[in-house]
């Protein structure tokens, strides 16, 4: 059995004028979580739909669980679970009815389907709401039911398309717990997300997609090293003090880095920024700036935002520069 449970090569898909996938290669190792990160419209959902047999690509090859997605979609469907971007539970059915229906469509006997439904509802803390119509559920409950629905068939590979969009942070962490448990039970999970921290919390490896192309495939740490950790940004009141500011901030820079005047896209004009190892750098930077007589009008400590990740990753590649829509 191959170590790769998802493998795609050169996937292309065009919708009218939009090249949604422009030669996407993907590889996911068995028993791991692959995070697919990218802005809206990057092609994440299209890629998932191709892998989940919902959409035929114009070009390219894809296999899931060692089976050719294009040639034997029915066999792939017996081995996958899909939770789409919108909670696609049936609102007029109860939680139990939703899950039993999926079980029946997976060829379980009705008694087995009922047993499995009860098991999953219990596990997802929905047992009390099992006989209520899904339209009475809260957003978080619907998401959980939707995720449960994709697990009815004990899938080998689980596709989660933005599973936590619209959930509050506590509910999001609940979902993360579910994903981790699935992996410990032997499933492999491919999840798309717009949240760097989500990919960071869950993924063994991260693929960054932009404009239908894979622009990075790395571990979360590798990605962060490329993008940089915390950044301290300081704007002196007097632009002539920029060299002094540079000198002061160089002293608090993270090992192997140095301060620089901000010029990149999204920069704060006239500011100086420096990668720092942690927030302790503040304790050194503030008195040092005072001693150097630098008057400060803007001072901040920033995590690399998703925006900065993409700026950092797309820099130097021929991909067209565009305003990223981050919602």
């Amino acid at each position, binding site marked *: 059995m191959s170590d790769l449970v998802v493998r795609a090569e050169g996937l292309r898909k065009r919708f009218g004028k939009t090249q949604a996938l422009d030669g996407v290669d993907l590889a996911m190792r068995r028993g791991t979580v692959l995070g697919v990160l990218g802005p809206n419209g990057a092609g994440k959902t299209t890629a998932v739909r191709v892998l*989940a*047999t*919902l959409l035929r690509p114009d070009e390219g090859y894809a296999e899931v669980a060692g089976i050719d997605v294009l040639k034997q979609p*029915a*066999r792939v*469907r*017996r*081995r*996958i*679970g*899909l939770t*789409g*971007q*919108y909670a*696609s*539970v*049936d609102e*007029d*059915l109860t939680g139990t*009815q939703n899950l039993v*229906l*999926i*079980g*029946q*469509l*997976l*060829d*379980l*006997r009705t008694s*087995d*389907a009922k*047993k*499995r439904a009860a*098991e999953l509802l*219990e*596990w*997802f*803390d929905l047992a009390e709401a099992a006989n209520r*119509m899904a339209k009475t559920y809260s957003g978080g409950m619907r998401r959980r039911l939707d995720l449960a*629905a*994709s697990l009815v*068939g*004990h899938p080998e590979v689980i596709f989660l398309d933005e599973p936590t969009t619209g959930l509050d942070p506590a509910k999001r962490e*609940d979902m993360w*717990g*579910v994903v981790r*448990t699935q992996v410990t*039970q*032997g499933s492999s999970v491919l999840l798309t997300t717009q949240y760097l921290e989500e990919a960071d919390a869950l993924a063994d490896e991260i693929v960054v997609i932009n404009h239908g192309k894979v622009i990075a495939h790395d571990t979360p740490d590798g990605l962060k090293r490329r993008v940089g950790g915390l950044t301290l940004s300081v704007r002196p009141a007097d632009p002539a003090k920029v060299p002094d500011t540079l000198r002061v901030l160089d002293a608090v820079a993270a090992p192997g880095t140095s301060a620089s005047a901000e010029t990149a896209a999204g920069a704060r004009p006239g500011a100086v920024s420096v990668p720092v190892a942690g927030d302790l750098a503040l304790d050194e930077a503030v008195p040092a700036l005072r001693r150097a007589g630098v008057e400060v009008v803007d001072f901040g400590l920033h995590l690399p935002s998703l925006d900065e990740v993409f700026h950092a990753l797309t820099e130097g590649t021929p991909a067209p520069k565009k305003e990223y829509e981050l919602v």
Partner: protein
Amino acid sequence: MTTLDVPTRGGFTGDIDRPRGGAPAALMRHSLALARRSLIKTVRTPEALIDVTVQPVIFLLLFTYLFGGAIGAGDRGAYLQFLLPGLLAQSLALGGIALGQNLNADIEKGVFDRFRSLPVARSAPLIGAVSADVVRYLTVCVFMLGFGTLMGFRVETGFVPAVAAVALSIGFGLCFCWISVWVGMLVRTPGAVQGVMFLLIFPLSFGSNVFVQTDTLPGWLQAFVHVNPITPLVSTIRGLLVGGPVAHSLTITLAWMAGLLVVFVPLALRAYARRA
């Protein structure tokens, strides 16, 4: 969340790649499961049955008491005997619109994505939804005949022909609704399904023998009435409920039903496969 010890393949037996009982049995089982889903939705939202309950009755009242005196030369009772079988046909055609609208909404909501990611035949969700519509067409028949009886309508033939009329009505409804399914796959919103279907059904139902005797119409309109599939259906239901020859019109009706299936089932399935 509690962690439960979940057996890895509980309930899944035999060859994972082979549907239990073979493909035809699986298609039937899956379609039934999906039909049950549609029925549950119907029961939960009874207001969605207005188009097969209140609406046909309003037409019946409107045409009997408002136009009936004028059209039937003063004899409303005789006009009701003439009108009811025709209105039944119109109500069946209109009753199929909701199906296309519901399927259109399901696709927009992503419910069908889940079905399509499961190992069921592509046709199962459509066949399931159409099968569940039996209940709606039966409802049309019960309301029309029940309310009609209160207004003075009488079956003049007998129990068996009346049951045959209901069976034919339901059968026709199940064939005609594939047009609505097809339209539901093509257009973007449920509202558009209704618009397109009204545009199709009103010429068919008014340009027929539903409301008036064909020989009162100008020649060109008579020509249209004679090729209209609603006409032989109305003639047959009329024959079965109030008497008259049915053999010829029944043959033509059955041919139309077969024709509707042959044309619109493949069109609907193809449009469904392309959608989304």
